[in-house]
Each structure stands twice: as C-alpha cells, then as structure tokens.
C-alpha cells in the first residue's frame, strides 16, 4: 500500500454553473444553465436541501495518494481519509436505477459501524463482537461466503465497551487482512485462506480496555490505538510489524515525554503545547495513569510529509474537578513519524476538557489554495462543533468555524490556538449545568465525513444535540466505569436533529444542509467521481445526493438504522457497486438496543434523550447491502 502512496492526482473543483450537462434544478443560479438533458428528478418523499451559500469556486485541489484502482483496501479508502472514489459509472444520470444486488445478515443485534474492504475479487466484512471476518466471493453476483474467520474474543470484553460492541473495520496489506478485536488483540488473517497468520495481545480487558478502531498500515507497520476513556484506561497508539505482529513502537497519550515519544523533533506551533513532560505536569499526581486519551478513531497518513495524523480521546473522569490541570495529551491532534512514533507537532483542542469532546475525529489531508497560496491542509470537523483547518506541516490553525449550534466556546484564536470559552457553559462539581451544546457525542462523532476534490466540499454527517450535566465524584475501580457525571442529552435548537452538510472548505461555511428532523445522523459518508454523495440515516434510509446541491436523487429503505460507512468499488465484471452496512446501535443510537430503556434519560451515558422515540423507527440486526445498476 505504501508504495502506491507517492501518487498524486489533481482535481479541478468545478463550480456547478460550469457543469451544464450535469446541472440540476435547484437554486436559480444553477437553473440558468442551458440543459442538454433534463435534470434527474428528486427521489420521491425525500427531504429537500436548504441552500445557504453559493458553492465554492473552481480551485486546483490535490489529494494525497488517491484511490486509483477501484478497490477499497483500507478503512477510509485512501490514506488521506477523503473517502472519495473517482469511480463515475454510477452518476447523477443513472443513480435513480440503483438496486440491491445482494445482501447478507450478520445475525448480531448490535451496531455495525465501519465498512467492508474490497481486494481483488473478494469483499471482507468484520462484524461487531464476536468480531468475525467474513470473506465474500464477488465473482458470483449472489455473493456467497468463501470462508469465515472466528477469533472467539474474550466475552468479558462486551461489558467493557462504553458504546456498544462495535468494530470499525480492517485493513489489507501484504496478503493479510489485519484488524483489532474487542478484547485487545490484533489479528492478521491470510486474505486467501482465512487462516490466522499472527495474533498479538496488546491490552487487558480486566483494566477496562477494549479496541474498536480500524488500523492502517504504513511501510510494513500496522498502526492502532486503544479505547476505554470511560473506564480509566491510559491511552496509546502503537505500531506492530506486519510481518509477525511484534511491537515496533508505542506512544502513550499521558505520562512522561519518554512514554509519549516526545523528544527533540517535537515542535508544536503554539506556546500552549510547549514544555517538558506536560503529560505528567498537567495532571494531579498519579491521575494521568487513569486519565484516558485513548486513540479510538481514524488515522491518516501523508506519504509526502511522511507523517501520520490522529487525535486522542477525552480525559477521564468526565468530572473535571478530579483532574486539575490541562490534562495533556488528552483531546489532542498529533503528527508523528510512523517509522519510530516520534511526535512532530501536537495541538490540544481544549485544555481540561469538561464535555467529553474527544478529538478522535478523522483528519482529512488535502492540498489546496488557501487565501491565495497552495497549502498542505489538515481538515478536522471536530466533535466540539468546529470545522478546523490546519497547516499539516507544522500544526498552525488556519480556520475554525462552527458547523452546528455551539455554546461552550465562542471561537478559536488563530494566534494562540486557544478556544475562547463561555464560562457559563462549563460544568462544575456540585451543580447541574444546563443546555450545553453540542452534546458529548459532538457536532458529529467518530462517523467519518467525506471530501470531494471536484467540488471542494466536505460532506459532514452532523447531529444537533445539547445536554445537561451533573458531575459527581467517581471512584476508580479497575475494569469498571470511571465517569463521574450524570448526563442527559436532548435535541438542540432549530427544530432539526441531523443534517448532511455540504461544507465549503475554502470559505469555511456551509453551502447547503439536508436536514433530518426526527433523528440525528450517525453514519459515515462516501463521495464519488460521479458527483454523488452517499450516506445513511438512523431510520434506515440509504441515499445518494447530488454533490453540488444536496438534492436527493435516490433512496432505499434498509432493514435497520445505518451507522456504517458506504464504500464503492469495481466488481470483477467491471461494473461499479456501492456497499454499506445497515445495523443500528453504537452510542448515540443505543436506545434502539433492547438492553436500553427510554424511560431513563441518563441511560447509555445520557444518549437516550437525544433519540427518545428511536424504537418506533428501527431495531438492531446487521445487514450488508451491495447495490448496482
């Protein structure tokens, strides 16, 4: 994979007005174009996007190591985490005819996050716990199973996963499918035979640790991180050798500079992130050992800067009074050298976090003009409600604009990198703070956005929820929750709960929003060369929308709410397909699970109030769908 990394491909972002042949009915500006063929109709019964601003102008946009061959071999498709595929056989003119080609149930009543892989003529799906790996033969249109690898993880891990027993997928490298198990193991499985090649134990469920994230592979190393910020774990990221699963390096998110692999090459852009041993000195004594900062989200890699980029999770406990200090390096974006793990820069989003705003959200790597000159950008649509744009070579913050209702902070200072907080919305021990926005699940959570280099737009699956919080003192008992707060979430202001947002990166504003009023959104997004954006809703609609305008061109009702991430690929027959998991669950949609009662708004760490009626609309049970023309 890494060898392909150095490829570069340039895309010219095209304003909709220039796309006469593809122009669609919608805002007046677009309708002026003379149409060579009638615009495809909007899907019947689908919501209508709200046009907010003119779309971005044409620009030269380069993506890092773009997808080239119609496969989907790593979690986000590409190293840059754009989730953009140039495939265009399915496009606005024919997407209305998209239909189900095959389906497969996973038989598991839990959330199916993540995405399948496609390598050659085989699709690989990882299920939620018990984390089975299923190989599906794409040569046969009915998609029969080639083999199933059953790793039989420790069942106790089910009781340690904060937010459903999910798995966010696998990566392909060197003839192996490599992924993490809930019980803190990483496995490599022969992609042809389904036989286990190696298996490495990297953590302990008895300490409350689990792993849910999808690893990536860079130059012969598998890079992965742990979960468990709600159970007092100490976060880390590590690299295993692809050849045999042995440990190459490990960098903690808390503790000494030595433990955090912070040394002479570490040059944070802002003074707030400079100093010796901040992972120790920004905590009360010993608290860093149970301080969180787990690395449970997506990892990006730029083969040109030769750096990986990722974020760390929230500090524990949620009750901030138990951990005076900035609590580094929780809620921090790191750039590291994948060879040895050494940190190059870091940016802590919010010192002494009090809202559970994990920084594990994807970081999208794009080269594009920024205020007149070409820059290497890192785009971070964060849980704290801002879309941030950084220079990824040095960690300078170039922009931070709200994409959902936010009140914990007014803005970010580009000079100091610090948020300007509103003290009225910082919770304190001994009282309840009301109406903080966004909720701990964020403006969006782990569910990844997509970036289309043709439009210059980022497509964000946002949700609009706020919350009340009553911190209380928590007692650390190994392997049990270490949270220290009662939280109640509820729908945010404005009468909408979720939205697919077409975000104009260059102008840092939304071009359009496609709103959901019943339920939030909690799945991933795919953008394609066919000027289409695919996404799914919590009540099970899977949609294709026009990338320029957000107009819904096609939709299909799946068997369960969608929290998975769509992918697209070329089958062995040369045709383009789109695949997605349906299967509701996860944190925000936990109230859909039978084990969670809607009568307790603090259930599922407070998520219930945000989706109170979800059991009316959907029930768990995973199904893989493959669509084609």
């Amino acid at each position: 994979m890494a060898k392909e990394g150095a490829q570069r491909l340039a895309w010219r972002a095209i304003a909709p007005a220039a796309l006469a042949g593809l122009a669609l009915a919608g805002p007046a500006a677009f309708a002026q174009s003379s149409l060579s063929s009638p615009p495809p109709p909007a899907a019947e019964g689908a919501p209508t996007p709200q046009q907010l601003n003119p779309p971005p102008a044409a620009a030269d946009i380069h993506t890092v190591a773009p997808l080239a061959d119609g496969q989907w071999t790593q979690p986000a498709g590409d190293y840059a985490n754009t989730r953009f595929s140039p495939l265009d056989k399915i496009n606005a003119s024919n997407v209305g005819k998209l239909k189900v080609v095959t389906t497969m149930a996973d038989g598991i009543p839990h959330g199916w996050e993540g995405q399948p892989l496609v390598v050659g003529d085989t699709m690989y799906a990882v299920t939620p716990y018990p984390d089975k790996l299923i190989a599906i033969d794409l040569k046969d249109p009915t998609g029969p199973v080639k083999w199933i690898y059953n790793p039989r993880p420790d069942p106790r891990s089910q009781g340690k996963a904060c937010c459903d027993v999910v798995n966010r997928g696998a990566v392909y490298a060197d003839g192996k499918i490599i992924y993490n198990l809930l019980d803190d193991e990483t496995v490599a499985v022969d992609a042809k035979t389904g036989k286990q090649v190696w298996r490495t134990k990297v953590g302990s469920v008895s300490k409350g640790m689990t792993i849910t994230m999808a690893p990536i592979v860079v130059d012969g190393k598998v890079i992965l991180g742990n979960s468990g910020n709600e159970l007092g774990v100490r976060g880390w990221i590590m690299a295993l050798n692809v050849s045999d699963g042995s440990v190459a390096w490990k960098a903690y998110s808390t503790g000494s500079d030595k433990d955090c692999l912070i040394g002479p090459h570490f040059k944070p852009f802002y003074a707030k992130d400079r100093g010796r041993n901040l992972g120790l000195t920004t905590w009360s004594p010993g608290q860093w050992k149970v301080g969180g900062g787990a690395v449970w989200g997506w990892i990006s890699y730029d083969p040109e800067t030769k750096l990986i980029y990722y974020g760390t999770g929230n500090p524990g406990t949620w009750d901030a009074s138990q951990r005076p200090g900035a609590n580094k390096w929780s809620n921090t974006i790191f750039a590291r050298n994948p060879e040895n793990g050494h940190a190059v820069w870091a940016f802590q989003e919010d010192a002494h976090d009090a809202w559970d705003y994990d920084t594990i959200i994807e970081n999208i790597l794009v080269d594009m003009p920024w205020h007149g000159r070409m820059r290497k950008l890192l785009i971070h649509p964060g849980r704290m409600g801002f879309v941030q744009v950084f220079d990824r070579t040095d960690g300078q913050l170039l922009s931070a604009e709200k994409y959902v209702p936010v009140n914990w902070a007014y803005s970010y200072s580009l000079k100091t990198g610090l948020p300007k907080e509103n003290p009225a919305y910082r919770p304190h021990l001994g009282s309840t703070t009301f109406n903080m926005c966004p909720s701990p699940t964020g403006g969006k959570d782990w569910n990844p956005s997509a970036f289309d280099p043709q439009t210059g737009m980022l497509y964000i699956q946002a949700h609009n929820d706020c919350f009340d919080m009553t911190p209380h003192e928590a007692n650390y008992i190994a392997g049990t929750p270490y949270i220290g707060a009662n939280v109640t979430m509820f729908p945010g202001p404005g009468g909408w709960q979720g939205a697919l947002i077409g975000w104009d990166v260059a102008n840092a504003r939304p071009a359009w929003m496609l709103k959901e009023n019943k339920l939030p959104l909690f799945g991933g997004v795919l953008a394609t060369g066919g000027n289409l954006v695919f996404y799914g809703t919590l009540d099970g609609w899977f949609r294709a929308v026009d990338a320029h305008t957000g107009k819904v061109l096609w939709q299909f009702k799946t068997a369960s709410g969608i929290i998975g991430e769509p992918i697209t690929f070329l089958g062995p027959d040369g045709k383009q397909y789109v695949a997605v998991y349906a299967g509701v669950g996860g944190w925000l949609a936990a109230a859909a699970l039978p084990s969670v009662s809607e009568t307790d708004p603090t259930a599922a760490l407070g998520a219930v109030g945000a989706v109170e009626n979800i059991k009316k609309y959907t029930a768990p049970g995973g199904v893989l769908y493959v669509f084609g023309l």
Partner: protein
Amino acid sequence: MLRLMLMTLAALIPLALGGCSASASDPAQADQAAPPEAGQAAAAQVAAARPGQLPGGPTQPTGGTVPPALAPVGPIPGPQIAGENPATTIQNPYAGNPSALEQGRQYFVAMNCAGCHGGHAGGGMGPDPRSDHIFKFGNTPAELFDSISMGRGMGMPAWGTKLPPDVIWKLALYIQSLGTQQEPDKAAPAPAHAPDSVATPSY
C-alpha cells in the same frame, strides 16, 4: 492518589461467600458500615479488616486454610409455584429500611454501577434493570446479591471482591425499588429540546 490506592487495595480483597451469609444473618453488624458519602472509606474499612491478602482470581483461596463448611441455605430461591408451600428465601437484611435504600442509590452512582446500567438504571453498556424486570439470573434479594457479588459472564464484574456485603445488600435493595413508589432520586424527564436562544449558529 489516596483514593486510587484505597480502591486498588479494595479491589485486591477476595471476599468469601461466608462473608455474605454472616452479614445476612446479622444486619446489626452490617449497619456499622461507613456512610455512603464516603464510599472510599467503606472500601478502606474492608481493606483494613482483611489486610495482607494477595491478588488472585476472585475465587482462588490465597492461604492454606479451608473455609468452614456452609450450612445449607434451604430451597433454591425462586418464584412462588402454585400448589406448593412458599419457599424459604434469604431476605435482604435491609428490607424496609429507607435510609439503607437511600444509601443504595448513592452507592449505585458512586461505585460506578450507573456508568454501565444508566444514571437511573435504564441500561447502556450493561442491561437495563429498570424496565427489564425479568432478570436472567433471578430477582430475589439473594439472587441479586449473587449477581452483584459474583459478576456475570457478559462483563458484569464480580463486586464481591470490591465492595463489602452490606453495600451489595443496599444495592440489591435499590434495584428492587426501581419503578416503585419507594424508588429514591427518580429520573427527571429530558427536556423536549434546547431553547433556540442557547447556541450559535442556527442555520
């Protein structure tokens, strides 16, 4: 740090089943437990009372002494069966004790039960004892005590090595009060939505 140390100590103390029958037959003794507002103190008391024991699996004896044989506790607890005499069951030593019930609620929050089972026992990481009145392992006082103290296979930790028996009895009392008039500190409903004025932007 002190709290960490105490809790770690507490977690290392294996607690024989004999401990709970002693407590069951002697509520007065259990009443001497530390007040709930100092949960860590309760754990510390156990730690002090049983010093010097080594970490091990929850059921592994650490020394050479064999625990004394337990007297049979009677019929297996369970629901009343029509036509049969009522079974003799172990009662919660705190049954009908409102302050113990209140303490049970406080332990539920302070000892991390809420993190898994919901702030008001509506579920989450763990099952929902509030509306799910059909407990897989039974809902009599003794069965609840066993489920809490021994743990269960889906991830419920064995609290018998982490909390003293009187705390577990009070937790069982709180669980049995859910959804009844006696339930302490009932959940307030979530607001319908946030006021439109609280946050920006509002597209």
